[in-house]
C-alpha cells in the first residue's frame, strides 16, 4: 500500500531505528554531543574533524539546521495518522486516477517514470538542504 511505504520516507537507510534505540542515552543524543559540542582545539593537531568536510548526508542529519527541519515540516501530512487513517480513500482515488492515466497516456509510458523521478527528487531535496 502506498501509504505504508511513504510514511517512512526519510528513514530509508535503515539507520534511524538504531539512532533512536533505547538505552540510557540514545545514540542520536550522543552523536550530537560528541560531534557538535565539546572542546574544539585548533592549531597544532594532526587530524580533526575541522579538516574534513562534514558534508555527508548522515552528518548533515546529525547537524541538521532549522531550515531543513522547516522544509521537512512541509510533508508532515505524510506522517499524519489522521490523513493516513483516511489513507485508504486516497489509495483508492489514487489507484483510480492511475488507471485512468494509464489508459489516457498509454502511448506515453515515460510519463509515469518521470513522475516517480520527480517524487524522488523532492525527497532528496529535503534531506540534502541543510548545512
Amino acid at each position, binding site marked *: 500500500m502506498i501509504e505504508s511505504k511513504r510514511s517512512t520516507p526519510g528513514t530509508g537507510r535503515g539507520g534511524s531505528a538504531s539512532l*533512536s534505540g533505547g538505552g540510557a542515552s*540514545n545514540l*542520536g543524543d550522543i552523536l550530537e554531543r560528541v560531534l557538535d559540542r565539546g572542546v574544539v582545539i585548533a592549531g597544532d593537531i594532526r587530524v580533526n574533524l575541522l579538516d574534513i568536510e562534514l558534508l555527508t548526508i548522515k*552528518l548533515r542529519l546529525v547537524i541538521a539546521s532549522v531550515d531543513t527541519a522547516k522544509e521537512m515540516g512541509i510533508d508532515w501530512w505524510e506522517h499524519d495518522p489522521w490523513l493516513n487513517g483516511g489513507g485508504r480513500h486516497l489509495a483508492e482515488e489514487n489507484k483510480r486516477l492511475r488507471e485512468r492515466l494509464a489508459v489516457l497516456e498509454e502511448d506515453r509510458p515515460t510519463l509515469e517514470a518521470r513522475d516517480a523521478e520527480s517524487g524522488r527528487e523532492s525527497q532528496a531535496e529535503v534531506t540534502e538542504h541543510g548545512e
Partner: protein
Amino acid sequence: MASEAGTYLYAVATDLDKPAPTDLTGVSGGAVRVISHSGLVAYVSTVSLDEFGEEPLRTSMEDLDWLSRTARTHHQVVETVAVSAPTAPVRLITVYSGDEQVEDLLRRRREDFSEVLARIAGRWEWGVKVYAEAVGPPSSPETAPGGGEETNPGTAYLKRRQASLRDREKDRRHAVAAADEIHETLSAYAVAARRHRTQDPQLSGRQEWMVLNGAYLIDGDNGEEFTRILDGLRKPGIQAELTGPWVPYSFTVTADAAGGPDGSG
C-alpha cells in the same frame, strides 16, 4: 606504507592526583592512558592513522556503524573520567601526532582549560527537547460530495491537504511559543543555558516537530528541582523530554575556540 600512529584525545580533566582508571578501552581497542601536566590530565589512546587519518576518515565517517561505535566509545571514556574529576570533553576525533603535542597543549592552554573546568566543576548538563504534538483530532476532512466519479478527487485531496497544513502551522506556532517560555524559565534557573539547533527527525527518531533543543548547566544537587520545574511547564500540545545528567558537553567553549556567537555566561 608503514602505519603511522597518532594520539587520540578524549578529554581534559582537573588533575586531582587520583590513580587513573586503568581498565578503559578507547576507540579501535587501544588502552586509555593519561598525560599529566600543569595541573591537568589528558585522557588519550594510541590510534593508527590507517584508521584515523584524514583519508580513511572521509569514508568511515559515512559508515554509521563505525561512527556509532566510535562515538559511543568516546562518550564512555568521557563519562567514566567525569565521575571522579571535573572533565571537559574534547570533540570527537581529535588526533595529535604524539604525546608531546598533547603535553604541549596542556601547557599552552592551561588557563583556558582551567577556566572551563572551574565553570563546570560539580555541575551537570541536562537536555530538554520539546516536541510539538498535533492537538486533538483535526476537523473532519470534507469528504468528496455526492457526485462521486465526476468531482475532481485530486482537488478534494489538495484542499484537505491545505487545511491540514494550516492546522499544522497553528499547532507549530503554539508549540514554538511554549518552547520559548520553557527555555526562558529553565534558563533563569540554570547556571548557564544553550539553545541548540533542533534535531532532524531522523536523529531524534521521532516524527513530531522539535521546537526546543536546550542544554542547561545545573548544580549537582539541583537535578531534582530542575526536573520538577520542567514538569510544572508541561502542557497540552507539546511533549517535553528530559535527558541527563550529561557531562557538560555544551558548556566547554573556550575563549579562542568560540566560533559561534554564543559566548558562555
